[in-house]
């Protein structure tokens, strides 16, 4: 039994379905991210758990107890909003103290300020804090009530890149330290992969895949997941017996099993899974093309390779130290032998 369970949640706004049967289970102390494009229902799911929104159908359980009908202020959920949620008339310390005061619990503000690294800023008002500092205070305020579950709705999306990375690592550290069951909503896949125990990828109000970051990345359950998480190539081909054909190139793979021969397919493959070698020129049945652009990304350099006999462009990552071997204009052969492929009918 999970610590937090969402079962068959449905919700629509004026006929438009925001959630179309969402099931999710979080173990105690686990951090699960809900990842998905804008409008897929992440916030709606979180707000139903928090009690700000009522589901049309389905239930929310904590430790096996159905809390679907419990009002928001009796749920003991710590909530961190996207931005501007601090009470403007209270200092950072007063914001943090607020929840414990309502519960008549002993004050722990100093300790919480230390926890989020703001020991010296307790007397400041929200408008005197930076965006990152405000979100730290918001986190401390949510944690102060010792919530059963921590809910974070894109808490980092209003911050700049550097602060965002720092704070997300910090959130993860604190969450692990406290063993806090956490539901983290984001549309930033890198963020989700970096901090989560498991990632749930959502689309159109339901989960497409729920698994550890590495499985979601390496074994995407669907084309949608593959394309939403990380960088992928989507190459048009045709299903043939025992594999797929891309132009003149035949690739033997089990990934195309079950697709009728002759059907158009998309071959989905990550840039870093493709091997590349200079092409001698003779036709040996390899997937060949020409380097048309290079972009330097730090440790790797991404080559754009236009496939021979068409205008499809495939992106291939090479260690930057080797990129000099493939200047623009080089004829190359691509090696998909070791690549994890996903083949889907178009």
């Amino acid at each position: 039994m999970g610590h937090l369970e969402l079962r068959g949640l449905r919700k629509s706004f004026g006929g438009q379905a925001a959630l179309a049967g969402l099931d999710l289970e979080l173990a105690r102390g686990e951090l699960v991210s809900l990842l998905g494009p804008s409008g897929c229902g992440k916030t709606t799911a979180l707000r139903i758990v928090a009690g700000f929104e009522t589901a049309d159908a389905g239930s929310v359980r904590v430790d096996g107890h159905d809390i679907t009908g419990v009002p928001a202020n009796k749920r003991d959920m710590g909530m961190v909003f996207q931005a501007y949620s601090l009470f403007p008339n209270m200092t950072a310390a007063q914001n943090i103290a607020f929840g414990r005061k309502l519960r008549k619990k002993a004050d722990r503000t100093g300790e919480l300020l230390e926890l989020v690294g703001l020991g010296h800023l307790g007397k400041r008002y929200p408008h005197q804090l930076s965006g990152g500092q405000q979100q730290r205070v918001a986190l401390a305020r949510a944690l102060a009530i010792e919530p059963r579950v921590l809910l974070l709705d894109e808490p980092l999306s209003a911050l700049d890149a550097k602060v965002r990375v720092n704070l997300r690592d910090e959130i993860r550290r604190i969450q692990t330290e406290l063993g806090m069951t956490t539901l983290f909503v984001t549309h930033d896949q890198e963020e989700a992969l970096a901090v989560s125990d498991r990632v749930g990828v959502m689309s159109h109000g339901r989960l497409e895949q729920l698994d550890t970051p590495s499985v979601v990345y390496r074994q995407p359950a669907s084309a949608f997941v593959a394309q939403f998480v990380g960088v992928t190539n989507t190459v048009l081909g045709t299903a043939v017996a025992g594999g797929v054909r891309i132009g003149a190139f035949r690739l033997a793979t089990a990934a195309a099993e079950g697709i009728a021969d002759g059907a158009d397919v998309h071959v989905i493959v990550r840039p870093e899974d493709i091997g590349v070698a200079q092409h001698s020129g003779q036709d040996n049945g390899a997937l060949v093309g020409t380097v048309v652009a290079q972009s330097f990304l730090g440790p790797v350099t991404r080559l754009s390779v236009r496939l021979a006999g068409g205008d499809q462009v495939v992106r291939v990552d090479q260690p930057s130290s080797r990129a000099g071997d493939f200047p623009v204009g080089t004829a190359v052969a691509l090696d998909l032998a070791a690549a994890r492929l996903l083949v889907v009918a178009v």
Partner: protein
Amino acid sequence: MVAPVANPARGDAAPGRRWPAWLVVVPFLAYVGVFLVYPTALVLIGAFQDANGGFTLDNVGALTRGVHLQAFLRSVELSALTALLGAVLGALLSWAVAAGRPDGLPRRVVVAGSGVLAQFGGVPLAFAFLATVGFQGLVTQVLRERFGVDLFAHGAWLFELPGLTLVYTFFQVPLMVIVFLPALDGLRPQWREAVASLGGNSWTYWRHVGGPVLLPAFLGAALLLFANAFSAYATAAALVSQGSPIVPLQIRGALTGEVLLGQENTGKALGLGMVVVVAVAMGLHALLQRRFARWR
């Protein structure tokens, strides 16, 4: 901000323009100088002048005695009372409007109606109340004929301070809606939700967050209402034709009536007094407004 490359005082170096940059604002400054600054200065300076233009404190001194002092006290009382009534009732109405949809009909009607009554009011409002609770007014008649109640049993109250209080409230409430509604809209839904997730209820929210956040805006608006009622003239002028119970009507008397020797500049001193009172209220209003803006 990036400073313009060319020296603004010397003007643009672009070919074809040989005139200095400040020339453009001259018509505006000249106009405002003649029709705003000059008349204002005339009042403020005239308040300290005798009939021959010499310096005197007599005019201003007269404000601290007798009918003038009473008029000021009455004006302050009327303005404070209607500002308080207007602020409380207006805040209530603002809340009822803000709780609905931002593009809903109730809101649209209330906002437009408030604009009319708050800023356009004046003489038509006086007649609106004559038609309602005047000697021949609808309510007066209905009460007299159906219920045997005489609204005027205790005198012609509509044409005295109680009447002014009623009619002023009628335009103070809408003004409150106009200035307070944006403040209510500035309350973020996250605050309410944050309070709920921390275990508080609606009362906790208003007591600890909503109320304190709105307080400066509320007080600021009340001061604005005070200044508004204090400055108002048209409604009172149309309603009260005998006597000059409040300052604006005394100024009317000074402008239109026969002026006693040695009191030529009493009107200006009364004007100065009004400006001082209004300026104090507006200054405090601006202070509070700034405080609220910081919180948004």
